[in-house]
């Protein structure tokens, strides 16, 4: 029993509800939003330290014993991801007032923002498959509202696609959960994992596993199911894009990671090989997308997809090193995608266009922003001292140990092309002749720079100080390879 585990869900939820009472009082709302995100970050940091010291925190809500009630499981993996989520929330809360118009802010932006954070934290922390579905819906509902906020024509068009696709995959999720329930008779993840071993007909479980993978792959934008992502992530406001890019697809990847390390480990020949194939294709097609366009927002949105491929590759290889690599890459990618979307938002705001061919010479006016973008490109591509490198190194080491040579080649090649697509933006937007008649707005640039620089600094620390973080990441890898630890801590046997 510890109510600590529920706090990362409750604090943003309460904040979202309270801010819905007075949406028009902007200075108050902004102040409270910033304060709450910082408070929440402090609480989550404390929980992180607590979990690292004392092991997994379990909360049985309503004092119902484990397989019967809903449980909240704050293990090191979940808490790490919640901590990263809250860091991004702080950056977004400070960036939002500059990026949104007053009208957009008064239409309950902060309420939906906090509900999104609450849903994401809940999805990371829950230990119950149906509860995971509910938290998916909480965060998706909030994301539907955020994507149309402002009501531009393109937003309305893309939100329809986004909504239809997510409704469809949510419906499949419910179907998959009902199949799981009919086979094993429970929705508690620990108990499912325990019972899966005793089912005589493993074939039906493999079918259910692939169905669940299909659901999570749609949310995470894996190869044949990524088509909805680039446009719907590039049309909303930059803050919203940053939240989506940093958090939403990562919840899908986390669910795959959790479900396929804890529950469905019985037929790895089929499922994990499928992951490897799809991971390779995801990387290739994502990078091709990123190279195909001159719209800077779209380039960044397409760059989410190969990152998803990298994480899926780690799950597919399924060794301790590769799972550590996936977790490390997950944390790194959340931070850097948040920073990149915020950077691109600032860039588009200052250049007045999102077309790469019409920009140029911005480094003469905004040197700091330019070099931050250059740094972000290096981090994303995985140049040695930075955080992208460590994650990719672990992934590649894991794959080589299992002699999956072809996926290694694809991964290295796509890293190169990611760097190319990013440097194209850097050269096109920041180098070259100044564009005539463009108003220079140094104050806005300075306001944008704060949150971006914060996230990038964290990203650099993640890479340079890898030795501080590595023991924790390695213990998560070991923990994921030993699902008994999770089952025992939940069911207390």
């Amino acid at each position, binding site marked *: *029993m510890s*109510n600590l585990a*529920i706090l990362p869900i*409750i604090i943003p*939820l*309460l904040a979202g*509800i*309270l801010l*819905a*009472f007075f949406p028009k009082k902007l200075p108050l709302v902004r102040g409270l939003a910033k304060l709450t995100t910082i408070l929440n970050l402090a609480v989550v940091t404390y929980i992180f330290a607590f979990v690292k010291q004392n092991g997994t925190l379990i*909360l*049985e*809500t*309503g*004092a119902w014993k484990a397989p019967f009630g809903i449980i*909240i499981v704050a293990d090191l993996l979940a808490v790490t991801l919640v901590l990263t989520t809250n860091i991004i929330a702080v950056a977004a809360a400070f960036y939002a007032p500059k990026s949104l118009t007053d009208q957009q802010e008064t239409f309950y932006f902060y309420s939906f923002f906090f509900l999104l954070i609450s849903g994401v934290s809940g999805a990371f922390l829950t230990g119950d498959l149906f509860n995971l579905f509910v938290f998916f819906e909480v965060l998706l509902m909030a994301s539907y509202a955020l994507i149309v906020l402002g009501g531009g024509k393109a937003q309305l068009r893309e939100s329809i696609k986004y909504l239809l696709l997510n409704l469809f995959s949510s419906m499949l999720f419910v179907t998959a959960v009902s199949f799981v329930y009919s086979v094993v008779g429970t929705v508690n993840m620990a108990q499912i994992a325990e019972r899966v071993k005793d089912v005589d007909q493993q074939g039906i479980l493999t079918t259910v596993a692939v169905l669940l993978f299909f659901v999570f792959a749609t949310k995470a934008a894996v190869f044949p199911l990524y088509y909805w992502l680039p446009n719907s992530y590039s049309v909303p406001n930059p803050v919203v894009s940053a939240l989506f890019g940093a958090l939403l697809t990562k919840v899908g990847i986390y669910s795959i990671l959790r479900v396929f390390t804890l529950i469905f480990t019985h037929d790895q020949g089929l499922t994990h090989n499928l992951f490897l194939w799809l991971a390779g294709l995801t990387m290739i097609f994502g990078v091709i997308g990123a190279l195909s366009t001159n719209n800077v927002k779209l380039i960044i949105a397409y760059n989410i997809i190969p990152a998803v491929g990298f994480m899926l590759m780690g799950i597919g290889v399924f060794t301790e090193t590769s799972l550590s690599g996936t977790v490390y890459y997950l944390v790194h990618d959340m931070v850097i995608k948040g920073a990149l979307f915020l950077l691109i938002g600032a860039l588009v705001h200052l250049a007045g266009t999102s077309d790469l061919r019409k920009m140029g010479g911005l480094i003469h006016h905004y040197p700091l922003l330019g070099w931050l973008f250059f740094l972000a490109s290096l981090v994303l591509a995985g140049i040695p001292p930075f955080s992208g490198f460590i994650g990719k190194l672990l992934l590649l080491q894991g794959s080589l140990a299992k002699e999956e040579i072809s996926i290694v080649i694809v991964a290295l090649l796509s890293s190169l092309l990611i760097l190319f697509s990013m440097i194209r933006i850097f050269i096109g937007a920041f180098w070259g002749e100044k564009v005539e008649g463009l108003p220079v707005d140094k104050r806005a640039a300075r306001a944008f720079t704060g949150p971006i620089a914060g996230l990038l600094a964290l990203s650099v620390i993640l890479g340079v100080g890898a030795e501080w973080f590595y023991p924790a990441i390695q213990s998560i890898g070991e923990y994921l390879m030993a699902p008994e630890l999770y089952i025992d801590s939940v069911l207390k046997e």
Partner: protein
Amino acid sequence: MIKTNDLILRTTTTLIAFILFGFSVYLFFAGHNKPGGGFIGGLMTSAAIVLMYMAYGMESVAKIIPINFRVVIPIGLLIAVGTGVGSFIFGQPFLSQTFAYFQLPILGKTELATALLFDLGVYLTVIGVTMTIILTIAQDRKDETA
């Protein structure tokens, strides 16, 4: 626009709306031991309010029930989350419920459970959401023609 004479509709509404309100409150309280509860009770109450809107028109009902339904949503949510957070004070896990028996004047020995408070939150949220949806769509049309 000439208003049609809807005397019959209005007279029956005065009667039926009362029955609907009563039934919805019954459903709300019955939830613990019989079919019913906050969700269906809230829907039924909103149905009664919608019936009044249909019979009497926007302005007069807005005068009779001067509630901004958009504020009802966070109030309901606050009550629901509050009952969960309330268990923190007593050192119990989140969302713990408790109950006790009371000797009430007319009803006699009655079981009162804190689950009812959670249901009250659900009830208010459902009314708030339903009425916000219906009234927003209704007002949208008026803005366009004006």
